[in-house]
């Protein structure tokens, strides 16, 4: 089964919503780097220090995230600014999964 065929087959089971990241310098680079594997929620719920974000971004780059070396600090700064330790996150209510 090709990946696309699988994904189309799986879509009805998802039933989730797509969140947008807040505007700001670095948003485009973050989207380009992160959306290939996961949606914005996973970023938006974090409450990490700049040091923790640096470690996370470096881990993701090692795993293939598309971050140009020149953009690395821009990505870290965006994430640390918007999703630092004081960040508040409320999960979105969704329909039952697979129903």
């Amino acid at each position: 089964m090709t990946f696309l065929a699988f994904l189309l087959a799986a879509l009805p089971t998802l039933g989730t919503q797509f969140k947008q990241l807040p505007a700001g310098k670095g948003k485009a680079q973050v989207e380009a780097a992160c959306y290939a594997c996961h949606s914005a929620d996973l970023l938006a719920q974090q409450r990490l220090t700049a040091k923790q974000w640096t470690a996370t971004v470096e881990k993701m780059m090692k795993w293939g995230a598309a971050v140009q070396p020149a953009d690395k600090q821009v990505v870290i700064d965006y994430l640390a600014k918007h999703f630092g330790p004081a960040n508040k996150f409320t999960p979105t209510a969704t329909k039952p999964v697979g129903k």
Partner: protein
Amino acid sequence: MDRRSFLRLCALAGLAPSAVLAASHAQPRMLQMNGYPINAETPLELLTDYLTPAELFFVRSHWLPRMPDPKTWKLTVDGDVAKPLTLTLADLKKLPRAEATCVLQCSGNGRALHNPTLPGVQWRYGAVGNARWSGVRVRTILEAANVKPSAKHLHLFSSDDPPGKVPPFRRSIELEKALADAIVAFEMNGAPLPPQHGAPLRLVVPGWAGDHWMKWLVRISAQPQPQTGFYMDTAYRWPNNVGAPGVAFKPEEMHPVTELFVKSNITTAPASAHVGTPVDIRGFAFSGVPDIAKVELSDDDGATWRAATLDPRHDPYAWRLWSYRWTPKRTGSAMLFVRATDIKGNSQPREAIWNQSGYLYNAWHSATIEVKA
């Protein structure tokens, strides 16, 4: 179009991969922790049944899964076995059937409640559920394959390969545990296992954390040594000697997370009550050992405790529903704490043990009730 291109297209178009928008206040509902891959937890107030319905059962996905095609799917059994096997779903269904009703909890359930804060899915309370899993005992399969005495670990492989250079999610469990009570399940609560829960086949490891419950299983391999790789050597590990909050350890100073910690949660409590008028508090309790001995509540900050009534329904490693009738004695904001103790005497602590990946949170849970005259 490949996976990455497709997702990028979705993202650029501002589309949900599913294009399905849910009514935000509809009941019943789930709490979305991530849109894709889907990660969702159950609101605590919906975890009131002995068996958690599949569609309300929490979903954990590391990445968009490459689910097997059920028509061509087979389970390979190899490694230190005298007779390697390749089993279809029809083959499995001809073997003696086994069932287990037990709790599945994500290792990271409660990660969001740890302080200092930690990276990862910020699960709060609802990455847990109790279901009836049906399939075949791992012992039955390994005996059919004539597993050799040299085998000490069971390596687990799924079709769920990750994108790019991300390490694959590969795990192993001690053969002793696999032989004792693990099941490969093709049914959940009496119906075919749903895709998001691992169809056509997942591992069930009663009493152990969810990272062992491999979904979309395609191969089990009996081996003399544990599996290696990121998800064994770095992730899902617990410190050998617990440190203070914020203290991180090297992987070699840690060991794999296995048994769940004793835990209870309040699912049902009124927001307000009146002095002298009883109200019912309800919840669930479970542990990494087969049963709970007692659940207690305190309305005086843990100075004194009174026993809740345990529901008679029980299976080994399943949760116990409990109820407690509380009569407020004074006006004001009352905080009720709950704690559980299992049959081995393990008791839920007031504070959970902080650990660098935020696993196995099990602090006393509480509900606040405004008491009026």
